[in-house]
């Protein structure tokens, strides 16, 4: 995969998925990493009800000076999604040249399980139409590593290849934000993510 860093004042990243997938931790790590790089940073997230298996989105912005903690539609440089339908739900945030990094995972929402809605069969194609999309087998990698909870950090490893932030800062940010006994595992997961991003 090519590194595609665009020159622009602020970098906007949307992280989305299903409540309970570790989205908030992932956004904490990214946010901290960007602050280590000396950027002004803002992050906005949703707590409460949605964390019970609902759709979750966080906004992260960093650069010279950030006012709004919310990203405007059509201005996200990257969407990091933990589930495909969630990527599609927020794809309208993507900038014209923005890119989607998505775990190759489908989690049917209750509306699908009870037969009220359908999981889009052509989801991959629809995503690709919204912008350049990278499908990542992050869940499989996490399974290989023996802990499904590190999917978030595997995906951050992939994202790290696209952002101009130092690898050392990423590792420091992981150390700062995960529980001590899981640091090694998460650093490993991050490394695997970077690897597959090529």
């Amino acid at each position: 995969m090519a590194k595609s860093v665009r020159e622009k004042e602020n970098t906007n990243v949307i992280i989305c998925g299903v409540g309970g997938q570790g989205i908030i931790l992932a956004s904490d790590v990214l946010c901290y990493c960007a602050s280590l790089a000396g950027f002004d940073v803002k992050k906005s997230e949703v707590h409460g009800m949605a964390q019970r298996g609902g759709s979750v989105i966080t906004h992260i912005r960093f650069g010279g000076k950030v006012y709004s903690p919310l990203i405007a539609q059509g201005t996200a440089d990257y969407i990091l999604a933990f589930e495909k339908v969630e990527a599609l739900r927020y794809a309208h945030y993507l900038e014209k040249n923005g890119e989607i990094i998505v775990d190759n995972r489908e989690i049917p929402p209750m509306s699908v399980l009870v037969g009220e809605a359908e999981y889009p069969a052509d989801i991959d194609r629809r995503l690709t139409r919204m912008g350049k999309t990278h499908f990542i087998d992050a869940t499989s990698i996490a399974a290989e590593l023996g802990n499904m909870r590190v999917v978030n950090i595997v995906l951050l490893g992939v994202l790290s290849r696209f952002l101009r932030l130092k690898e050392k800062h990423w590792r420091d940010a992981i150390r700062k934000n995960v529980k001590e006994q899981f640091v090694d595992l998460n650093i490993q997961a991050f490394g695997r993510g970077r690897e597959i991003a090529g």
Partner: protein
Amino acid sequence: MKSLLSGNEAVARGAWEAGCRVATAYPGTPSTEILENIIKYPEINAEWSVNEKVALEVAAGASFAGARALVAMKHVGLNVAADPFFTMGYSGVTGGLVVVSADDPGMWSSQNEQDNRHYGRHAKVPILEPSDSNEARIFTKLAFEISEKFDTPVLLRLTTRICHSTCLTELGERKEIEVSGYVKDINKRLVLPAHARALHLVVEERLKKIAAQSEVFRYNRIEWGKKTLGIITSGVAYQYAKEVFPEASVLKLSLTHPIPEKMIKRFAKHVRKIVVVEEGDPVLETEIKAMGIKVTGKDKIPLCGELTPDVLKSSFSKRTKAPAKSSKVPPRPPVLCPGCPHRGVFYVINKLKLVVTGDIGCYTLGALPPLSAMDTCVCMGASVTNAQGMEKALGKEFSKKLVAVLGDSTFFHSGITGLVNAVYNKGNLSLLILDNFTTAMTGHQPHPGTGRLARGERGRRIAPEDIARGCGVEMVKVVNPNDLAATELAFKQALEYDGVAVLVFRRPCALLVKPRPPYRIDPESCNGCKLCLRIGCPALSLVFPEHREKPLAVVDEALCVGCGLCVQLCQRSAIFLSRKSDG
């Protein structure tokens, strides 16, 4: 030094720096993390109170005693605490008293979108509105100073995007402030009519003094830009205005009640056109219009829903280059977690086709399909009282198919008074208390039924069944909600019972216990009958394999926590344990 803090963390830090001694709260999104972070500062005597009225009164007592005190709640919490809030506006303070209200525009996790800036005006209490975490920290400190200087509680008004947005924040040191001690002063603190009449005059005078302060308040400031457009704004809306109208002149209000009239008039004189950019109700707009100044505001900017840069932009320009929202994306509302102990109760309710007066908590999700087992949800505690009212209107027979449902934390918050009322007034009521040993919805805070205090230390456990008996309920049962047969039997007994019956369904929240090994479904035995899907477990789904005539139910082993509820529904014993528990 700068640190990344959310607005809530910043309020906690600000309280600590300000020498705050006592802090109280009842959890509620988006305010919860304020007390959760205050707990980390040992200098502050912090508690989770049982409800917001209690929390505010405890903080008020601390203020009477001369200690700086802070109380935090979500917007609707201030409805519960409104009574002491208004009177404290009359009494004023001794130690600074800061009331934090976290509003939830967009209703991310709330039942209404009320704008609590009205409360400050209504109770004649000054309001501070930070626009980011750093201001949240500074304004918390200033709120204590204003409170003591003007002898008034101060309303620190936050919104979801302040509470749950993180940015770089300066850190200061704590300034110890001695507790001044208690000095009797009944004219101030004993609001008999005779005293209150005098206090009302004081309140009106005080507002004038604070209005003068508002004119010179450092954080009410003008940022001059082009004079063609002037924006008056406050709170997070300031950030959106700067983003969308980078060239405009901006009057940023921070002490937003009372507003600085002279400053606003001066600003108005220098700009050609004024737009008031505020989230929620036209609060500033109405006051500015009353000053005779022509402004644009809610005629363009929506009053309902969350304000965002997109909403602000599209209020003034129809042109947009953003791509359209994808259509036909299946919705993903929140659901009861796999293994949630509430699930069994709602399954039985659905099966028995009961009418349910509901309440607020994770268990409100029992209202969603396929469980669809809730009819009403008004406010915390209303399940009990609504059911009693329905019985009054429709008679005893109706109460045989009616249950009231609420969680353990909700019961302590405001279910007890309703229960006493029902017993006293000879109601026929079946009350189900879903006791999962925690306040789950807001992220697992302790409450009296857990026997744990705010910092995790052991307290005294007060069991809901003991309270029910103490309230005079004679039919009280404790049931395991994961045992569907026992649950159904208990329902029948309670519904048949003449008088008030209380069933306590006890099983810890699935997020607090170690998951058990997942179940599997034997494809040979499964006939695709879908019985197991009726419990609405996210770990169960139906697939349609190509080579198979009938559909097949499957368990997502990554989600299943081995609660075994579905096993009890399968008529063909197709659901089995994939491996033995490792202990």
